């Protein structure tokens, strides 16, 4: 792809514009003017840094709960230190392997589908010329986000009922035997993924649409002049133009690999599908019903944080090394 006139470099080119020499020059050149220019940037960041320090970093001290046999009245640090015992306790539960697998399996599917679907819908929406329809669709697909799983759970149970549900009726007319979706260990995870994507894809779509609007229209004009059809335009201009955002969203969502969706699963699961549907969070929840499990809950939270951080760091550095692109 050629570099365009006008100075606006398209993103793929941006990936490769770092020259090693430039960095070395920084060490040699006098820096006072640079520093002066940077100063306002620090000022701009100051309030954010302070607020985050007080309300996000200081509370992190509570991670200590994960390592104690926690009694609230002893304060945050006063209970007996038991090291990794909380972690070991969870890892030694009889069906933890199954539960972990369920969690990762469902979460990963949600991550993948949760990227592909909004992306595709955004691209399709982009093709709509009629502004009224476009805005209408944009608004409506965001609606499911506002419904709670308590409510949606009930609706889904009705829709998916093998005897009376609308899905079963449709299946019957095309000759397929009704499937007990929510009661079958085989189907349960997929139903969770599909319904969750349906509920939340509107959010991602908004972001991708915003990304599309940021692409320089002259690129399209030039491509049309070169004879590119719509598909080629999408492939060579739209997608690359969205690439930074796509990579960003994908990376951040990687952090959710242990979050299979407590709210949803809690409202839809049942003993019949514990085998494939019981996840980390539902186990912790049920343990908390018997006795408040401060230590264990915090330990699980810490575990999730560590895993998220590792995955996100890996993608960050991969993106940096391979494409010289810093995701954030």
């Amino acid at each position, binding site marked *: 792809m050629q570099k365009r006139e006008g100075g606006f470099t398209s993103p793929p080119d941006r990936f490769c514009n770092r020259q090693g020499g430039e960095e070395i020059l920084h060490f040699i050149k006098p820096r006072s003017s640079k520093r002066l220019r940077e100063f306002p940037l620090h000022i701009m960041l100051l309030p954010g840094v302070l607020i985050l320090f007080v309300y996000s970093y200081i509370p992190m001290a509570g991670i200590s709960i994960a390592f104690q046999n926690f009694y609230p*009245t*002893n*304060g945050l640090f006063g209970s007996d230190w038991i090291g990794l015992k909380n972690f070991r306790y969870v890892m030694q539960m009889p*069906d933890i392997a199954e539960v972990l697998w369920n969690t990762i399996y469902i979460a990963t599917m949600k991550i993948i589908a949760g990227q592909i679907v909004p992306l595709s819908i955004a691209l399709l929406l982009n093709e709509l010329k009629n502004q009224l329809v476009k805005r209408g669709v944009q608004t409506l697909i965001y609606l499911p986000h506002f419904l709670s799983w308590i409510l949606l759970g009930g609706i889904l*149970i009705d829709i998916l009922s093998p005897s009376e549900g609308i899905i079963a009726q449709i299946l019957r007319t095309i000759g397929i035997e009704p499937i007990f979706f929510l009661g079958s260990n085989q189907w349960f995870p997929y139903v969770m993924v599909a319904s969750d994507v349906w509920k939340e894809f509107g959010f991602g779509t908004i972001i991708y649409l915003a990304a599309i609007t940021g692409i320089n229209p002259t690129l399209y004009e030039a491509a049309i002049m070169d004879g590119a059809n719509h598909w080629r335009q999408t492939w060579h201009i739209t997608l690359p133009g969205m690439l930074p955002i796509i990579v960003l969203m994908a990376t951040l969502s990687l952090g959710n690999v242990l979050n299979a969706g407590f709210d949803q699963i809690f409202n839809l699961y049942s003993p019949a599908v514990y085998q494939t549907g*019981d996840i980390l969070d539902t186990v912790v929840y*049920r343990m*908390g*019903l018997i006795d*408040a499990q401060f230590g264990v809950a915090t330990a699980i939270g810490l575990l999730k944080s560590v895993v998220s951080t590792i995955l996100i760091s890996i993608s960050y550095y991969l993106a940096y090394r391979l494409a010289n692109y810093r995701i954030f």
Partner: protein
Amino acid sequence: MRFKRMKRAGIVSMACVLALLTACNSSNNAASESKQPAVSPESSASQPASSEASSPEASYDPLGKFDPPIEVSVVRSTNVLKFDEGESYEKNAWLDFYESEFGIKVNLLWVSDQFDQKMNTTMVSGKLPDIMPLGGNQFKRLAETDQLEDLRDALEKYGSEDLKKVFEGGGKIGLDSVTKDGKILALPWLGGYAGSAPLLWIRTDWLKKLNLPEPQTMDDVLKIADAFVNQDPDGNNQKDTYGLVVNKDLYTDLFGVDGFFNSYHAYPKIWIKNDAGEIVYGSVQPEMKTALAKLQELYKNGTLDKEFVVKDADKVGQMVNAGKLGITYSVDWLPLYLQAGKNQDPGMEWKPYPLLSIDSAPVQPKAGYPINAYYAVRKGFEHPEALVKMMNASLVLWSKKYPDRDLARKLEFNNGVEKWSYRLVHNQIPTQNIDAYKNVNKAIETNDESVLNPNSGEPDVYKRMKEYLAGDLKSWGYYMDFGPEGSQSILAEYDKNSAFKITEFIGVPTATMVNQGDTLAKLELTAFTKIIMGEASIDSFDEFVANWKKLGGDDMTKEVQEAMKK
């Protein structure tokens, strides 16, 4: 991917973990101060209750006034449904009453719907309120870290007769469960076991339609269930009705199967004494196997809704209200839930029956031992007797005690507003609902309202029952609960004969319960669900028992036996 929401969801999940830990579990504890109509015998309560002879009467007055007045900091959860004009949690007639009558000036630190959360954070901050209504686990934590004041002395000296009566007999177990090394660390608000006992409910309009007699034995019930499925009781020529109600969680107050198992002399989920007198866990006893086999059969032949395995009690309740189910085992207040269905279909009639047995031995319905709240005083507070006095106050019939002070309107019941619910401290006698039933029916018979105890819902229940008798179907629910053939009548019989099988384990969860409780519960539910669905044979029950014992069941049993020995 939305991290703020993710984190928020994480916080909320943890919050839910902590908040709901005491929600539905009626056999141990409850965080919200659920109220039950309280009955207090008409005795004057201002008798000194001291057993020590050396102090003058006046200083041990159970309802005496603090002079000079004292300040007490408290917290509470948001459980008042309706406030009178101009009243709120921070400003109401009871708070004024505590001050004017007892010299107790209440400083309300906070009111919260997420009581557990807020209480947990309060505990960590180290600033405990003087008087606190705690859930079972919070009580346990505070007791273990020696944060609670000993109330034995205060109870002895200042407890009114009525209060002491509450803690005698059946109530003593409750008090024992909060006693540690001889110190009474809380005054439990006893919930009354009758409210957790399942009754057999049958749709009598369907019985009439199909010309079936009322059941006398469990076999009759099974026959009726079969008829409800196959003989089209709703008359629409479709096989769309089921015989027996079950929901995915199996053991719930409404629409559960506890009562079914009880009819086979099986007692899942509670602790019972076996023939040797030892305390054992009900779900692993052999009687369960027979009952489970029956349920498996009922699932197979369509008496049970095959989709029950994914429906919770609420969802199933919707089906019942829509007229799809005819038999259920539920607790006493079911008809109030069914009122919605009645409003939709006035021809719907439900009647409660005592649990019918599978053999000649009568059935004892299971009962839990609910403790609605543990009222405790923080260690170091100089006036623990303030709590005792406030609790005494909850048992007094103020309008009867001082008939010229117009206290009924202020403190008890005023035009649809349940004023007694403003109270910070509650207690009641375990048989209060049954007493309410007796009082209300007597009042209707004799047309004399003076026998009603306005300290609870009795005037309201009375009003509703009269409305029903006058033809208003919207009060049908009350009538089926408190009426002459309603739930309370059956419960009263059971109570008279001491026929409840109350759980043998009363107290906060033991170590193994905390550590392995969820694993074992999950094991049980999964195994039983599979058996009922026919995915596992009935003999897998034996495997389940073996697994249960191995994975912590035996340890748990030993701990329970130990705990109840003292």
